[in-house]
């Protein structure tokens, strides 16, 4: 097989050994008797990539082509937008918990805060952070590549994202302010008078989203092709860490879903600027018939959610992957049911394109769609539940380090299961009817795609900080950070579901004195107070990073005793090119912890079968 490949491709393998017809899986693996070539791994099919090394400060730190630096750039830019989003949420909670206390928050401002908070957190913070940030940093390291396959395009990707963020932030300063159309941007109101920022604000938002999609496509192609084409020798797909699987699947989803956002942005821009009527029916406003007619507002909702639902998984799948790795490393046990985990990620990704209209049960679309979309939505709960079972089964009979990283993972499991269960309420079409557009929805999606992924991000920061910065973050500060954030966030969103049961609609600037709403006043004050505390508690992380950089303990190589390749670089932190002279060769999956008979409680992916011949390691 390999012979044929060689002839066709015309590449000369680097090694001159005879090429055997068997794949490495058929030969490697201990316990099956020692054969002379048991350490054999198929030779590389492509020559090594040439790297462009920076020659100046600007090439090294600004227009840098090293995926690790680009990852950090993405990370910092995304965190900046996240801080803006956090401040906006404070302002919203100020109005909701203590209406009238801050006189400058008018209804217009409130809706602008709601909109910008939503869009920033979902797209510019979470998506960019997981894929642009963690994706760039971890993919080449984890698959054993020297860099992304298209480093220059990768650099452009970040700068396109940066411009998108600048355009987005500029909308705070244009006449009329940023758009206040709600993050879903439902037309017709989005581009009509009566909505804040219906002039400049919405235009800048649409332009910024389009730029984001263009930039993201450049990055996404890199992530996909690097994972498919640039894996090191022996790194079969089924030996990749779940982090890579999660990021890979999320990127494929993004490639398929973002075009729907791009076209709907363009169509809406045309409606706004040129007076086309893609989404605009005949409208009577202030006694005058507008010059629109025949368009469909529901068409926009279909396009938006065809992007919007996969988007949920674009955020969730990398989080699933990362948390699987963190749990396995810190429970010192192999991830339970790896193949099930991989297929669950892929299955969830595929199914996520068939559930979008569950956001639209009461949108006025043909009500018969409800049967189909309720069924697909609840089916997706099965692979998701399997993942949850596998996480807790990984803890079972493990040897669990209860450190800061593990705490964030545990916090993730609690919030994710909680938010997942409330998703079953909302996905089950007729149960959604009383709850849709109430605070139940707000509580649900914040729990499941706000707090749960945030727990993973924090866990990942504490886990990989030693790799990125070469120093160990302070455990004590980390634990304070965790407990305040977790307890605070849980007490924001858990009781918020009950406001939804009362019937309090979302996106209400002011509740007035409806009897069933006033009963929630005390609860709203409590939630707001908790929100202020949780936001402020993030300073623990900032302080921790500053303190660590100044006086922190230097990290040894591979401080967590992990197996995956990113801990086996030539230097810590890894330099450009990652692995020094020789790329690592992979012989096993990254989850061989506590293998019976092994001397240490971990076997790196690079450990050759002959080194572990005396153990009971299973074939992977």
């Amino acid at each position, binding site marked *: 097989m390999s012979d044929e490949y060689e002839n066709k491709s015309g590449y000369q393998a680097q090694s001159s050994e005879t090429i055997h017809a068997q794949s490495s899986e058929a030969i490697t693996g201990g316990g099956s008797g020692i054969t002379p070539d048991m350490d054999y791994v198929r030779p590389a099919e492509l020559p090594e990539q040439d790297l462009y090394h920076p020659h100046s400060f600007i090439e090294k730190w600004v227009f840098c082509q090293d995926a690790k630096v680009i990852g950090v750039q993405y990370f910092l830019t995304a965190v900046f937008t996240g801080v803006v989003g956090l401040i906006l949420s404070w302002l919203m909670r100020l109005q909701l918990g203590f209406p009238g206390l801050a006189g400058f928050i008018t*209804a*217009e401002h409130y809706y602008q805060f709601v909109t910008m908070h939503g869009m920033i957190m979902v797209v510019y913070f979470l998506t960019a952070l997981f894929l642009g940030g963690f994706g760039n940093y971890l993919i080449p390291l984890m698959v054993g590549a020297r860099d992304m396959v298209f480093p220059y395009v990768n650099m452009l990707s970040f700068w396109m994202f940066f411009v998108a963020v600048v355009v987005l932030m500029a909308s705070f300063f244009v006449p009329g302010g940023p758009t206040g159309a*709600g993050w879903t941007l*439902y037309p*017709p*109101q989005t581009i009509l008078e*009566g909505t804040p920022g219906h002039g400049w604000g919405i235009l800048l938002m649409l332009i910024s989203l389009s730029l984001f999609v263009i930039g993201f496509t450049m990055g996404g192609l890199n992530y996909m092709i690097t994972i498919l084409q640039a894996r090191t020798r022996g790194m079969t797909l089924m030996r990749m860490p779940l982090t890579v699987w999660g990021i890979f699947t999320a990127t494929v989803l993004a490639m398929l879903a973002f075009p729907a956002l791009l076209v709907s942005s363009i169509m809406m821009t045309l409606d706004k600027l040129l007076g086309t009527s893609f989404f605009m*029916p*005949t*409208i*009577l406003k202030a*006694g005058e*018939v507008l010059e629109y007619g025949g368009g*469909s*507002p529901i068409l926009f909702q279909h396009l938006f959610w065809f992007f919007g639902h996969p988007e949920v998984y674009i955020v969730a799948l990398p989080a699933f992957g990362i948390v699987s790795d963190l749990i396995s490393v810190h*429970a*010192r*046990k*192999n991830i339970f*049911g790896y193949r*099930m985990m991989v297929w669950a990620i892929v299955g969830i990704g595929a199914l996520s394109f068939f559930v979008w209209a569950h956001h639209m049960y009461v*949108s*006025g679309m043909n*009500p018969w769609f409800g*049967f189909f979309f*309720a069924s697909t939505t*609840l*089916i997706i*709960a099965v692979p998701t539940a*399997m993942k949850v*079972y596998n996480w*807790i089964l990984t803890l*079972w*009979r*493990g040897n*669990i380090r*209860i450190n800061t990283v593990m705490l964030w993972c*545990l916090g993730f499991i*609690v919030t994710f*299961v909680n938010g997942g269960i409330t998703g079953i309420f909302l996905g*089950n*079409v*007729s149960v959604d*009817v*009383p709850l*849709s*557009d109430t605070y139940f929805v707000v509580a649900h999606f914040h729990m499941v795609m706000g707090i749960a992924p945030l727990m993973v991000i924090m866990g990942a920061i504490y886990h990989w900080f030693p790799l990125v910065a070469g120093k160990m973050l302070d455990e004590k500060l980390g634990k304070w950070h965790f407990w305040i954030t977790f307890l605070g966030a849980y007490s924001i969103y858990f009781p918020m579901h*009950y406001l939804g049961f*009362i*019937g309090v*609609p979302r996106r*209400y*600037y*002011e509740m*007035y004195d409806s009897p069933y709403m006033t*009963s929630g006043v005390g609860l709203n004050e409590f939630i707001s107070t908790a929100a202020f505390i949780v936001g402020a508690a993030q300073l623990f992380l900032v302080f921790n990073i500053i303190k660590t950089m100044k006086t922190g303990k230097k990290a040894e190589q591979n401080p967590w005793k992990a197996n995956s390749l990113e801990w086996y670089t030539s230097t810590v932190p890894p330099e450009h090119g990652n692995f020094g002279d020789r790329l690592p060769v992979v012989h096993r999956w990254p989850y061989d*912890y*506590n293998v*019976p008979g092994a001397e240490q409680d971990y076997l790196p992916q690079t450990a050759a079968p002959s080194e572990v011949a005396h153990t009971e390691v299973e074939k*992977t």
Partner: protein
Amino acid sequence: MHVGIIFFLIILGSVLFHIFTPWYWTDIASNWQGMDDTITLTFWIGGGVFVAVCLFMIYCLFRYSYKEGRKVEYKPEDKKLEKILTWATTLGIAALLAPGLIIWNQYVNVPKNALEVDVMAWQWGWQYRLPGEDGKLGTTKVTNINDENPFGINIDDPYGRDDILVQSDYINLENNKPVKILLRSIDVLHNWYVPQFRSKMDAVPGIVTFYWFEPNKIGEYEVLCAEYCGVGHYAMRGGVEVQSTEDYSKWLSEQETFQDLIAKKEKLEFESKKLAKNSNLNLNRNIYTEE
């Protein structure tokens, strides 16, 4: 192990909060008890899974926290266990989906005897139209709407003439009589929502959407707009009064029909013209020649 204890307290607190919460459903006032029941069922099954998963996690924290040299199980897969869990989950999901779909089937099939109510929404207010003696609503068009014809009824449509017009945010409904809400909007998305009725649907400009319910508790309820519709969204409130049959008939008989409105407008116009004619005949001559 203090970590396990804190997590346990969180789970316990969640369950206690759910049992003792003062914030829960408003008393239901429609036929959609089935929605509430499905929610309760979902709470039992879903809540059970949540508690079970978390308790298992907490058990693991107590039982398997780090100890140097602890013997750890090495078992990458367990096909049998995975199969059992998959099927158990599938069953649980099916048990939740089935009642959900049955009730949805009721929700999208409107009873034949339902009273059609045209709910017209705009930024930011509501008005209502009920069928007259012929039991049918006249057809409408957005471009017909003007001061004389606030509902945009097609003048040629014979069904429209006797339609009962309620130019107010408030409407009355008859107790124990199913209502089919026909929603339309003349500008942006809106949603006519009464929490006590449990049901809702968006009003979409350009099309007519619908849903139905049967009010079954006499009383006054607040109407909320449940789809963001611009800066006045939060203030877009209305009201419903559910009345006994006698009270409702009395209220209905006091309402104006489209015919009444046309007649009133014509009378008003006629009088103003007469007035104008008397005061300044010359200036208004062209009006008469037009007619």
